[in-house]
């Protein structure tokens, strides 16, 4: 296996974050009743004409700039012709020879090693409607709500060589688009999906025949589909056969890819410039203005986090991969210990979010609440251990941090004399262990601290406790 190389290129279809469609004013609301978000243009009624939505153009420019790509001052909309029931015009308006965005690149990081993945282009196109085959035993229904929604197709260069790189690449692009607010990146709803081109070759040989796996809508599927496909192709070649160029589908249940159509069955789309639309001319001033309005992007932010908060590259990566998370973190970390903030956001809060399957926007604990909690730790009111109990309660109730601490009586005991009373009691109750300790079994320190903690119900200030117990035993 070792001398095999995998070559992967990816086309990402990202739905443009826009209230209205690419060429009509219909709404793009997800989950509306079928055929309620459809204009005459979306339904391709006779005589209807497309009119470009300037906001979608702006979103594409932003995305292009975010991908470090060249924005083309002139681009052309083409018609991609094919017949299907959910394609009302009989063609999709797309961009073929002259896309709005040209070459660019993104950086991915795998186990600390950075790799640059080239972007070939980004173009705008309309989405088709949706065919519903499960509403009737004999009929297919068509929902045109999606028809005409703006998509960005982002085509990478074949620069990836493993499923991990492929996933890292899609994650990175998704992260950038979400930073820019140009795509919500919601893969479950289909706002972002990937077509993956995979081929294998022996080291030093020419590129192998590629297969395209269509419509992957989760990172897990992207990884699994690539791994299966690589394996399949290597087995074919090792049997002395040839890989056929084809389009394949990934089936979740069997975790396999299967052939959808061969190269011979591929459509001839008869692309030609859409005569209903003039070439898209972009003023350089506008592009510059958009450039100036771009927010800080994940790579820059990560660097800043490492330098400013003095946190590890790994933590910075975790905290900046999503714009909302990074913003949440910065709200928490403002004027507070960055170490505590990282630990509470990236460990405690993430664990809760994962468990409840929520994203940061729906976090049960707000950034200011989490900040208050950290304040209580920092000023010594509660112990870290008590804080966890408070946090758990915060996730389930509306009560304030202070109220929870009071209600549960979790205020930390930081009064030396009070702690000493507990310690003395524990030492008196365990003379044998005290003896053992003094004879050199210093590991028993933990035992004494644990007993005191038990006695104080965890409220003893651990620093003080440690200090005093040691002092008493060592004397």
């Amino acid at each position, binding site marked *: 296996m070792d001398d095999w190389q995998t070559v992967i290129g990816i086309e990402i279809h990202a739905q443009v974050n826009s209230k209205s469609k690419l060429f009509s004013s219909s709404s793009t609301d997800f989950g509306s009743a079928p055929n309620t978000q459809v204009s005459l243009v979306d339904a*391709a*009624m006779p*005589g*209807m*004409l497309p009119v470009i939505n300037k906001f979608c153009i702006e979103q594409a420019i932003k995305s292009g700039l975010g991908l470090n790509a060249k924005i083309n001052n002139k681009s052309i909309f083409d018609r991609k012709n094919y017949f299907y029931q959910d394609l009302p*015009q*009989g063609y999709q308006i797309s961009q073929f020879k002259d896309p709005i965005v040209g070459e660019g690149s993104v950086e991915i990081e795998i186990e600390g090693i950075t790799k640059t993945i080239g972007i070939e282009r980004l173009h705008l196109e309309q989405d088709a409607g949706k065919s519903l085959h499960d509403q009737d035993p004999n009929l297919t229904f068509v929902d045109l709500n999606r028809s005409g929604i703006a998509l960005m197709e982002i085509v990478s260069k074949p620069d990836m060589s493993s499923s991990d790189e492929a996933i890292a690449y899609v994650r990175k692009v998704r992260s950038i688009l979400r930073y820019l607010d140009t795509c919500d990146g919601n893969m479950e709803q289909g706002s972002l999906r990937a077509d993956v081109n995979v081929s294998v070759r022996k080291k030093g040989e020419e590129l192998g025949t590629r297969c395209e796996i269509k419509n992957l809508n989760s990172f897990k599927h992207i990884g699994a589909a690539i791994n299966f496909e690589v394996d399949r192709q290597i087995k074919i070649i090792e049997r002395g056969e040839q890989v056929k160029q084809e389009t394949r589908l990934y089936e979740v249940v069997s975790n396999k890819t299967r052939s959808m159509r061969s190269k011979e069955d591929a459509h001839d789309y008869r692309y*030609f410039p859409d005569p209903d639309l003039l070439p898209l001319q972009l003023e350089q001033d506008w592009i510059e203005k958009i450039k100036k309005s771009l927010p800080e992007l994940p790579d820059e932010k990560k660097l800043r986090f490492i330098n400013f908060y003095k946190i590890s590259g790994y933590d910075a990566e975790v905290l900046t991969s999503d714009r909302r998370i990074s913003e949440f973190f910065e709200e928490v970390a403002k004027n507070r210990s960055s170490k505590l903030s990282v630990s509470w956001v990236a460990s405690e809060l993430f664990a809760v979010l994962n468990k409840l399957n929520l994203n940061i926007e729906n976090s049960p604990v707000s950034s200011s609440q989490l900040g208050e909690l950290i304040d209580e730790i920092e000023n010594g009111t509660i112990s870290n251990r008590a804080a966890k109990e408070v946090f758990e309660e915060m996730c389930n109730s509306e009560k304030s941090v202070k109220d929870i601490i009071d209600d549960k009586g979790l205020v930390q005991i930081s009064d030396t004399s009070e702690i000493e009373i507990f310690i003395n009691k524990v030492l008196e109750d365990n003379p044998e262990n005290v003896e053992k300790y003094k004879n050199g079994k210093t590991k028993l320190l933990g035992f004494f601290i644990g007993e005191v903690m038990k006695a104080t119900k965890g409220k003893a200030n651990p620093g003080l406790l440690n200090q005093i117990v040691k002092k008493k035993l060592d004397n």
Partner: protein
Amino acid sequence: MLDNLTILEASKLIDEKKVSALEITNSYLKKIEDSKKLNCFITVSHDKAVHAAKETDNRVSKNNRIGPMDGIPLAYKDLFCTKDTLTTASSKILSNFIPTYESTVTNNCINKGAITLGKLNCDEFAMGSTNKTSFYGPVVNPWKSLDSDEELVPGGSSGGSAASVAADLCIASIGTDTGGSIRQPASFTGAVGLKPTYGRVSRWGTIAFASSLDQAGPISKTVEDAAILLQTISGHDNKDSTSSQKPNEHYFSNLNSSVKNLKIGIPKEYMSDDLPLEIQNYWNEGKKILSENGAEIIEISLPHTKTALPAYYIIAPAEASSNLSRYDGVKYGLRTNEKNLIKMYESTRSDGFGDEVKRRIMIGTYVLSSGYYDAYYLKAQKIRSLIKKDFDNVFKDVNAILTPATPNTAFAIDKEEKDPVKNYLNDIFTVPINLAGLPAISIPFGLDKKGLPVGMQLITNSFEEQLLLNIAKNIQDSINFKNEPKCWWK
């Protein structure tokens, strides 16, 4: 009194309250009813027309008439979508299609108070120059040969629009012109037909044939009426991205017939021995008139003229093949029920489209196919830009160009033309203008020896419709042609 009215005449009668809009409308509805032999109308909007006429009269009674179009009965080529009124493009595939919306062109007319008499027959999806490709049967030219009783074609594709004006079934009409579809039938029926600059008139709500060439325009009895109508239908439309931002002009009030010191070009490539002598003679007469009225006649060259027709018959079918994909039986129009999707497409489109439309869809599909695109479509686009350049060069030296509108006059409906390419030659003088996006007008000059109308074409540079109309008016006033064919059809 109510026969052969122009817009100006009818407008005056309404203004002076000598006749009501309803009386005029009813007289036209009656004439339409009596003229079914001509097969001009696919749909007569009787109730709509009467209702609109009463509204005009109501405004007139309150001295609130909107303008010269208020109360004028018009009819529209059945390519314009009209709200709640059947709109077929003369095709079986849309034979049950009733739009929920009004095209910008018809809406502009309605907003100025014009009355919709109905929808006019044309070649199917505007593909043809005889009107014989209509699912609703051919339109018959009101004009007949002196020596024969044969029924003649009115030209096409706006055959119903031209014939209805010649037969006085409406005061004026609106057609569309993709390669000559207004000018050629206007020429065959003795009417004035104007194709505006591409982008002057919105295409929104007009059923598309070839989007980069299609343009709506008026067919009328006089140049004055053409000016009023152009003013009515023109203007920028946000809903059409190819619509020009240039402000609309007052073509009628600015109309003047002076041609003094204008330079008129005569393209040598349009001269041919095949051109019938009478058409040559009228062309010469045109030069003479303009020259006598103070213009200078200059021979010019448009070297790529010969390549226009082949380029046109690649570009137009290419666009059409894509534009007509939406007629698939899924959403509206005809659907032939079948067991699966592909079969449904096949039978719906086989049954719904006529031969000429199918032929052009096939040509268009072919020329856009991978492997042929460069040799056909791309080359045709290059030719198109050369043709445009030809005109750009010529308009550095001349103000307008005079040519015949057609290489022939009306011919018999029964004349079977087996070779479709011969039919395409009808468009030889008109097609280059669409490829270049220029405005042009066809104006009647007289009758040939068979007694059939001969039209000449004037061409100007983009957005110089005013100049075009001015020169046309000069010729019209010098000739005094009457578009009044002998009535045989009632």
